[in-house]
């Protein structure tokens, strides 16, 4: 029997990184050549790094094998429809290499997301420590501004990766598909995130940037080189978003099991669909706005330079046209997790399933019409503020439908409180805090006071924690036995929750409190506001407690994946089809265990009802490769 030897170079990531370095150097060299031919001195750092970054990222993708099949097709070669899966491949090679299996990709997204989450969280703890007291203790203003900006954008990236993890892993399993519609595209879309993250974090070493994650010109035009790495990094992970959402939409619409009408899909698939519709159509705008600033920096084009006839506020319109819908991308799948898990833990149907499904589309739609509520003080046309206020408050209606449905689902249920359920309940309450702090921001007059203060910071941290972080953790705990075949440690899970939940309350209310009383955002120091030092101390301590609880979470996952108790097939007694599969899920999902839909997804309490019935698989004709 031939033993395949796995070396460092078997790992796709290693090949990709080597290719990336070569590509960056080639890009820089190319840039120098062009400059010499133009009669300019050979070296200019900024365009060199930008071109190097672009070519390096493409080289990474080629090196890791994300484009190999496409190159083959370009040459007229055939490739197998289903790539051969090598059961001998050790885990560390499999997960660090290019794969087309949506489950592997889902885990890759999830782990990468958790790493970025830890990095962004660490940045926050660093600058939060500086904020405990008035005066500069150990951070210079420039370094503070860079950490603060990176915290924002790396967190956003971590959230998108987490959304990608859940959507990619779950959608095919929930609808009975063997994989996504476009597996190669799926793998490609994941690996874009690695060069993207590298470029983003490289900004730390290239002078940083001081604009916050929004990158408003003119400040971003005069910011150091790190600003370009930020623009390039975001541009890339925007591409990943677009390609991933394309895949989800086609998969959900075309690959459902027999009998699964749209209104018999698990509710999570509805939210993944709504999320993907937003990602697919809006992401282009942030790329465009950043590209315009890049061109202003590199080529002197005056889009946002009043001296050249440009308009500063134009950037904000283009930027927020994506970035507002983006926040619904962040939270919709998390809200889908809440809707998906509640019935399982209260043993009762999801109340008003159709309305909940429609509300996701409703949020997605209305979300496109509210962007200028980020610009009430920007100096845009004054009259515009009123229609945007109306549309902004309107989002509360479909969101309310979800909240009331959850409460009605819980009402008269039979609640049990395993870790996933704790995180679901925590998510609902925290997202409620975030959501209720929305209207004061949405009515213009009150926004004039709170805009650019810590009240806003409190608002979006609550919506992000409630809409993404808590549900993501609930999802990880919930599906952990199906993914790994082992059970996580329940006591550590509860410890994680009972540290994180109260700490988050302290952080949230602390932020909103100081914000209302005069604490601006994005400031390294708050001279003159001595009375705020105690609240700031409490907020920072809360941050550290949250960080510690996340470490417990990571430890629990890592330890239990290897040494946890072997899990039953369906520990939660869920009706959902993926729990009819063995754990871990076999490579081709339902190919040997297909099912047909025979009932409604959430008919808990209806005796003798079933959602799916596993059928005898049809013998497949032998395929010739």
């Amino acid at each position, binding site marked *: 029997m031939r033993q395949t030897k796995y070396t460092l170079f078997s790992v796709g990531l290693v090949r990709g990184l080597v290719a990336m370095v070569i590509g960056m150097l080639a890009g820089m060299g190319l840039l120098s050549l062009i400059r010499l031919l133009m009669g300019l001195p050979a070296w200019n750092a900024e365009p060199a790094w930008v071109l190097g970054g672009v070519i390096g990222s493409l080289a990474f993708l080629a090196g890791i094998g994300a484009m190999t099949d496409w190159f083959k097709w370009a040459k007229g070669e055939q490739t197998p429809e289903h790539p051969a899966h090598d059961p001998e491949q050790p885990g560390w090679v499999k997960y660090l290499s290019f794969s087309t299996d949506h489950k592997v990709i889902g885990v890759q997204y999830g782990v990468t997301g958790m790493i970025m989450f830890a990095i962004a969280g660490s940045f926050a703890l660093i600058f939060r420590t500086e904020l405990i007291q008035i005066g500069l203790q150990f951070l210079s*203003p420039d370094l503070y501004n860079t950490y603060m900006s990176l915290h924002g954008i790396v967190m956003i990236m971590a959230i998108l990766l987490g959304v990608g993890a859940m959507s990619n892993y779950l959608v095919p399993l929930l609808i009975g598909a063997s994989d996504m519609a476009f597996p190669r595209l799926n793998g490609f879309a994941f690996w874009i995130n690695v060069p993207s993250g590298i470029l983003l974090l490289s900004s730390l070493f290239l002078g940083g940037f001081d*604009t916050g994650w929004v990158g408003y010109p*003119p*400040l971003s035009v*005069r910011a150091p080189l790190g600003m370009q790495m930020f623009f390039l990094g975001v541009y890339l992970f925007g591409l990943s978003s677009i390609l991933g959402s394309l895949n989800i939409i086609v998969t959900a619409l075309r690959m459902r099991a027999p009998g699964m009408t749209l209104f018999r899909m698990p509710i999570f698939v509805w939210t993944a669909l709504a999320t993907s519709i937003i990602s697919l159509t809006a992401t282009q705008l942030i790329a465009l706005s950043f590209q315009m600033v890049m061109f202003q920096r590199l080529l002197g084009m005056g889009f946002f330079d009043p001296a050249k006839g440009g308009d*500063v*506020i134009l950037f904000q319109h283009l930027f927020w046209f994506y970035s507002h819908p983006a926040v619904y991308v962040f939270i919709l799948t998390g809200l889908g997790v809440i809707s998906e898990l509640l019935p399982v833990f*209260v*043993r*009762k149907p999801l*109340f*008003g*399933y159709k*309305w909940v499904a429609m509300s996701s589309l409703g949020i997605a739609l209305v979300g496109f019409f509210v962007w200028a509520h980020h610009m009430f*003080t*920007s*100096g845009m046309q*004054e009259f515009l503020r*009123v229609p945007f*206020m109306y549309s902004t*408050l309107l989002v*509360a*209606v479909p969101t*309310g*439908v979800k909240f009331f449905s959850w*409460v009605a689902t*819980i009402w*008269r*249920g*039979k609640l049990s409180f395993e870790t996933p359920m704790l995180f679901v309940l925590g998510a609902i*309450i925290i997202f*409620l805090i975030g959501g*209720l702090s929305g*209207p*004061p921001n949405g*009515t*213009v*007059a009150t926004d*004039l*006071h709170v*805009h*650019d*203060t810590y009240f806003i910071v409190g608002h979006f941290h609550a919506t992000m924690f409630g809409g993404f972080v808590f549900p993501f953790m609930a999802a990880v705990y919930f599906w952990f036995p199906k993914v790994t075949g082992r059970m996580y440690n329940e006591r550590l899970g509860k410890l994680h929750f009972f540290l994180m939940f109260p700490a988050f309350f302290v952080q949230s209310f602390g932020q909103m409190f100081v914000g209302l*009383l005069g604490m*601006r955002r994005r*400031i*390294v120091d*708050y001279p003159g506001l001595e009375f705020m030092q105690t609240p700031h101390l409490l907020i920072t301590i809360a941050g550290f407690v949250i960080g510690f609880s996340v470490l417990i979470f990571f430890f629990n996952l890592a330890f239990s994946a290897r040494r946890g108790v072997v899990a039953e097939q*369906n520990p939660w*007694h869920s*009706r959902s089809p993926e*729990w*009819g599969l063995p754990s871990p899920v076999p490579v081709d999902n339902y190919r040997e265990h297909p099912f047909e839909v025979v009932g409604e997804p959430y008919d*808990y*309490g*209806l*005796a*003798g009802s*079933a959602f799916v019935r*596993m059928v005898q698989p049809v013998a497949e004709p032998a395929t010739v490769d």
Partner: protein
Amino acid sequence: MIVSSHPLFGKGIKRLLESRFGEGVNVVGMVASVEEAIAALMTLHPDLVVVDYDDGAVNREEFLARFVESEHRLRVVLLSLKEGGSNAIVYDRRTMAASQVEDWLKEWADQGSALSSIISMGKPIVQRSKFLQMKNNLIHGFGALVFVFIMTAIGLLVLRTDILLPEQASLQAVPIDNLFGLHFRLIAFLFALIVGTILYSVIFFRRKKGDITDAVHITGNTNLEIAWTVVPLITVLAFSFIGSDALAKTLKPDPKPLEVKVTGQQWAWRFEYPDQGIISNELVLPVNKQVVLRLQAVDVIHSFWVPEFRVKQDLVPGQVKILRITPSKVGSYQLMCAEICGQQHAYMVAPVKVETQDEFDNWINVQLNTIPTDPVARGQFWLDRYGCKACHSLDGTKLVGPSFLGLYGRQETFEDGSTAIADEAYIYESIREPGKKIVLGYPNAMPANVAQEMTDEQIQDIIEFIKTLK
């Protein structure tokens, strides 16, 4: 009782049981279908039912599902006479969890035959009287209402504008704070409504230990859905309307306001009173008189905010923006830049003093008399007023730009390697065209239009002052 459509199965089992257990076993019936079996359960009341697992005509899942619905306490055995693996499975409704049925059906299945469906083991249909159901609902409903009421009360005690907002020092703050108050009250109620109900549920709808049955099968209620869509819709429309009204109130122009031109630059504020002819680095305002601030940014976006005045407006390069404030309370406040504008953004603050009209007029006079007559002193005065000291120190400290100490007559080396003596022409050029020569080791950060408002005389005064810094 034996359930099988194959007569031989029944006969064989009967003989087996009778030979093993003799008098202790009495086969009370042999039926051939699920319907007959269910009917027979009612009449025969067997203690044990043996079901032929391999019989295609007997739908065992259906039998189990319907069997579970009933209240019968008896044992069921699914018996397979096929080769391999365990041949019989005992299902005892008292000791085995209903949900474990699917698991051990799968055990069977993994022996080679098809998987079966995941069945919901519903709650046994116990016909509670409608009256009892309603009474239950009412009690729970009332209980939850109590929780909601108490939490709302606590919320209203805590969420108050007089604790949570800075003091009110402008007329514009009044409609804003009233709107905040409205928001806070609604937030208190809605938070209590949702969290109170959840809290009630967490306490009173817990699953009892060992209970593996499902809860009541309620899928929705269209009237409720419509209600909790329409009521919030009306509420948000009302709030938007009230919000527009509040905004309009903050924008009401006074026919004869005080004019102040506000210039924001990295990282200082400058206030010019064109009608009074003075420039200041502090914003001094007479109480109860509307000031119209004409906001201009020189370099990047800044934002004008005094928390006690509430209203805020960005300063946008290339455009003039208006903000109207009517200070209503004498006192000292702090103007803070509220849009990230670079390194020293946190420190871009300026004092704001609201005084009586007499005190204000007095201050104007003092300012007019403060402009020194001596060119050197005047030069220092302009450096203060125009914010130059945010980047250029007078004592040798290296800030963003070169220190003015010892500047005059010094040989400066530039980025491109060239040098020059810092004479009058050099200093003049450095102010009028800051980007022309960049001193080695410093960034090209001086705004190009800082000096647009400076006259040649003012620049000359500055040069005279710098000459004295040795």
